[in-house]
């Protein structure tokens, strides 16, 4: 039994969605057939069910690097090797607004947890196959998506440095969230496939404005649809390659 996610390892699929938010885990599980709650210890809400006959799991990670690393390590011990983060994010770009979908191509490593795995110069990047699956899924669902870089760090409320915001904006960083740096680096060390898709809950000027909430909710549902379709296509490709999704 793992130390924090206390469930039967057989209840974890190799295909796992990892939102930060527990509520979003429930929303994702609502798309599963025969969704079963398999864990809620330490706040990790874990459901497993079927998507078009393919067994998939969703586990909330909570916020930030430490809780994310513990979560995905334990999921990995139980056989997970393909993980898609379905997150929310802020943005540095004026062309992004509430509800916009962002597919991640790499992350600025502003968090601390990943540094205990690999030195800072190691690139935090998603797996190309997963990213491609996300981009194709968005296209096939006719959901517009930004594809680009993000930053992930450890503090939501720490003072913000305007010069740094300007640098990030110029360097094309689209999204800001708190988990993908850890996800990509731990995955590199463990040899898993990962990707990230986020919904913006703000603009370059406003953090989570009330006027954008409805658009955000719609965007959140869009990211869930994209992630589900992408994971399904990845599983089907595995099936074609190996004859099995297990």
């Amino acid at each position: 039994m793992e130390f924090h996610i206390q469930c039967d390892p057989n209840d974890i699929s190799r295909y796992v969605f990892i939102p930060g938010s527990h509520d979003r885990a429930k929303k994702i599980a609502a798309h599963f057939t025969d969704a079963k709650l398999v864990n809620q210890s330490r706040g990790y809400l874990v459901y497993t069910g079927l998507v078009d006959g393919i067994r998939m799991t969703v586990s909330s990670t909570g916020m930030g690097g430490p809780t994310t690393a513990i979560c995905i390590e334990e999921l990995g011990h139980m056989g997970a090797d393909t993980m898609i983060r379905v997150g929310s994010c802020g943005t540095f770009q004026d062309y992004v607004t509430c509800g916009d979908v962002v597919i991640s191509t790499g992350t600025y490593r502003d968090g601390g947890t990943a540094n205990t795995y690999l030195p800072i110069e190691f690139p935090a990047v998603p797996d190309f196959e997963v990213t491609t699956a996300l981009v194709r899924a968005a296209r096939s669902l006719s959901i517009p998506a930004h594809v680009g870089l993000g930053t992930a760090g450890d503090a939501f409320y720490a003072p913000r440095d305007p010069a740094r915001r300007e640098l990030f904006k110029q360097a094309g960083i689209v999204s800001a969230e708190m988990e993908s740096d850890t996800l990509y680096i731990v995955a590199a060390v463990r040899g898993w496939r990962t990707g990230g898709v986020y919904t913006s809950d703000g603009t370059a000027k406003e953090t989570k404005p009330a006027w954008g909430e409805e658009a955000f909710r719609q965007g959140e549902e869009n990211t869930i649809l994209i992630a589900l379709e992408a994971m399904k296509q990845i599983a089907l490709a595995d099936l074609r390659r190996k004859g099995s999704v297990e």
Partner: protein
Amino acid sequence: MEFHILCNPQDIAPYVFVPGDPDRAKKIAAHFDSPRFVSDTRGYVIYTGTVEGIPMTVCATGMGGPQVAIGIEELGHMGAHTFIRVGSCGTLQDDIMPGDVIIASGVVRAGATANRYLPPAFPAVPHFDVLTALIEAAGRLALPVQVGIDWSGDSFYAEGDPLYWAKMKQVGVKSAEMEADTLFIVANYRGWRAGALFASDGTSKEVKPEWGAASFRAGEENEIRIAIEAMRLIAVADLAKQKQEGR
């Protein structure tokens, strides 16, 4: 006129191949329709020609971050916006042989030049469209490639720490070369698109073994064909997008 690449800016195409080796620049130019020698200052050997009517340039960057940064900055001043590095590399993985082609999906930033642009926490990654085009091109040409993390640093002959290299091998770093970190970070900082592929000239145990030279040359030719097809795909997509936006 630029400080180091001394040529007429009109002679530089927006689509540029950036090998390290001046000899490889000539080999790439040999695939252009009516290639023209543009200039050779400071070792930046430049040819411009067309591929199916699309103007393309090749510029040898020389070895290491400082020369790469100066080269692409000056090419950028002259209108270049899409770069594909066509390089050679060593490898850390036992299953990679001389002549194998590797497409970089991200780069370990062991070099120092890029740090003057963006801190090491910033990921050195190819532009997604260029990465996609390179993989698509390899598929169209039915040439096998590996896609993975590359290591880019400033020293060819330094031994380095064996534990560090063991870690890099363990986490799956495929290739080692000296320019992609700088290329990706400067391009990203300037808002340009860049990608990179390399032909391995060694194995995880041998650096540039003589027995692998012929395979390496074949791999080099393969990566040139992939790069040219990828650039063509990118340019065609750009054109289609421009038409759509103009409508």
